[in-house]
């Protein structure tokens, strides 16, 4: 655990208490059964907004708390532990695009509403099943056309941050914007979003690498959610091994299993270091592209192993819907593929390092 200040410790403890008591995995099960049209429970989102979590990276002058990325990461890690279905990662990243690239007018218009949770934002960047493919969406006369694939939290979002050939644009849900569901294994909100001459407002102040900067934020914050998931699968699996008896012994007493848990524990330590260093990089502004690659690549690697081993170490019961561990596997793979698969990130890391 990074060394935290008092404010951050309070924020983390508050998020941990809330996730544990008010939003445990049974809440995710309820969400799954209720199928809310927004892709999240509006009253839950309201509660999160009231606690100030929707404005953590938004400056105070625009209604946020400006607590920084480490603080945002701490909250999101806790929410990841219990699979809380909310658009907080998507909306925080969308807000950061406006903070980085918006005009004064755009900031004044959107940031207070994003901070209060009244508006949910999301990124609409990729056009295929893989992150990092071609961008064919284009803008002509202030109208954006093109289709973005597998957009996270598309159902609840009313503001899209859309990449086009010449930069990033803000597009409001409404005329010229249509959704087609893409239900994935995590049973969260995903859709292909078609923009057909939708009114688009350019984020003109972020420089040529605005999209890269926004994606680095998406990578690091997603990695924080993945860290919470990995920690939870590890903890639940360890508890299970200490309870389950076979051959008249608890499983935790078998050395073959002890050594596998030691391996996972060490991997988890590396993942935590990588993710925390990504969050620190965002707060310091130093070495972000590199740190984002390391954070998300390690998150991908370690959550992949832990989510798979979590099932194997539970045995058959881990494959049942009654046990939670399978939900983590199904969310893990969606997040692994988002904002950069492991191969994509290794390629980017090598390019940044000059080889």
């Amino acid at each position, binding site marked *: *655990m*990074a*060394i935290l200040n008092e404010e951050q410790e309070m924020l983390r403890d508050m998020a941990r208490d809330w996730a544990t008591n008010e939003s445990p995995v049974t809440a995710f099960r309820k969400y799954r059964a209720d199928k809310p049209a927004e892709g999240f429970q509006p009253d839950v989102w309201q509660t999160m907004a009231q606690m100030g979590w929707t404005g953590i990276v938004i400056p105070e002058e625009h209604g946020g708390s400006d607590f920084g990325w480490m603080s945002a990461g701490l909250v999101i890690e806790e929410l990841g532990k219990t699979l809380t279905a909310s658009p907080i990662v998507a909306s925080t990243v969308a807000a950061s695009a406006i903070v980085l690239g918006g005009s004064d007018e755009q900031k004044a218009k959107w940031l207070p509403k994003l901070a209060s949770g009244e508006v949910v934002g999301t990124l609409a960047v990729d056009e295929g099943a893989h992150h990092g493919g071609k961008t064919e969406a284009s803008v002509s006369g202030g109208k954006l056309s093109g289709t973005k694939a597998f957009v996270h939290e598309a159902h609840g979002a009313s503001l899209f941050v859309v990449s086009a050939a010449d930069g990033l644009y803000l597009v409001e849900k409404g005329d010229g914007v249509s959704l087609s569901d893409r239900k994935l294994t995590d049973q969260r909100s995903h859709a292909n979003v078609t923009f057909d001459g939708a009114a688009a407002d350019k984020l003109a102040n972020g420089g040529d690498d605005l999209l890269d900067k926004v994606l680095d934020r998406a990578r690091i914050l997603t990695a924080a959610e993945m860290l919470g998931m990995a920690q939870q699968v590890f903890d639940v699996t*360890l508890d299970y*091994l*200490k309870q389950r008896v076979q051959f008249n*012994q*608890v499983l*935790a*007493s*078998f*050395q073959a*299993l*002890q*050594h596998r*848990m*030691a*391996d996972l*524990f*060490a991997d988890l*330590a*590396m*993942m*935590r*270091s*990588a993710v*925390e*260093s990504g969050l620190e990089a965002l707060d310091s502004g130093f070495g972000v592209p590199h740190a984002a*690659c*390391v954070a998300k*690549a*390690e998150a991908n*690697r370690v959550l992949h192993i832990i989510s798979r081993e979590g099932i194997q170490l539970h045995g058959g019961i881990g494959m049942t819907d009654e046990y939670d561990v399978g939900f983590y596997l199904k969310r893990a793979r969606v997040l692994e593929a988002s904002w950069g698969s492991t*191969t994509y*990130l*290794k*390629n980017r*890391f*090598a*390019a940044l*390092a*000059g*080889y």
Partner: protein
Amino acid sequence: MATLAEPRADTDEAFREEVRDFLAKNFPPELKGKGNALASVEGPTQEDAQQKAWREAMGEKGWGVPTWPKEYGGGGLSKKQARILQEEMGKAGAYNPIGGMGVMMFGPTLLESGSEEQKREHIPAIAKGEIRWCQGYSEPNAGSDLANLQTFAEDKGDHYLVNGQKTWTSGGQWADKCFAIVRTDKSDKHNGISFMLIDMDSPGVEVRPIQMISGLSPFCETFFTDVKVPKENLVGKEGQGWTIGKRLLQHERTNISGAGGGGRAMGAAMSEVAKKYAEFDANGEIADKVLRDKVADFEIRWQAFLLTARRAVEESKAAGGVSEISSVLKKLGTKLGQERSELAIEIMGLQGLGWEGEGFSESELAGVRAWLFGKAFTIYGGSTEIQNNIIAKRVLGMLDHQ
């Protein structure tokens, strides 16, 4: 966590000036890039006059062990000042001439567990780099099962009479003194062990180097035959040797892992090796894309390990020193260190497997020996399997097999 004792920014700048001044006056530029012979267990110390002067200058300041207390000859620096010292030495290309097991393992342990007299006798000599220590732990039948050791110290009133055999004594042939765990009670496996200090030139001590696959002989067999050890050389009380000895291993593991700057000593970044030896295409990328993927894969994990080591140091400050996290660092760092050597050889091809003679640079030949020597990383200081046991039982609370 900032404390009031931390110097303010302006005093730090003053300290930085002091360091620069010291280095300009005392570090001979001719020694730039030279290693620290004393810290190595792979060869005898053969200092020339310049190296000796540099060691003495650093020893006088106590800056070879910058954070050890000043009263015992250490530098008495804050962590922040120690970092400044390290930075400035890095800029000047200056190595730390004070090292070895006395610095890495024995000194920190004695500072925690030794008597006042013992600290006054031994710590200043370590801080000045005057005395080389070796480790009397493993025995032919006490490897991973270290507590099975049989070397016996018989109570003879004012002294112990030690008989037995140690093995894998790193640098035993060049050491002045040995910190050893020996048996003082045959009836109790763990509580019958004591920690004592033995002069290597005592009558009855015999050292035989063991030739290893690297072609080097850094490890020795050490035989004790009726060796007299004065009672004042007992550290702690009789029967506390296992506790003190294990504590020392935590210091050892943190060092072996390559954490705390040691990682850099393993050599250039993998990307630098690739830039020197791999073919690059017109895009400025490693032409062999599979190899490029391997290099990036390794460097990302290496980065995550170094971050973990840094995090462990920061967190241990709050927790009061090294802890069981040293097992995680040792397990990760040693595995990655070995992987690093293997990948470097893969990048270099047969040029990376030179044994001796013409056609190979000094650093290429050293790399091969380091690769072979490095097989020891995951075995000594408690094998990876022992670290896994410690993590599972002590950290994760997994039960022993009944």
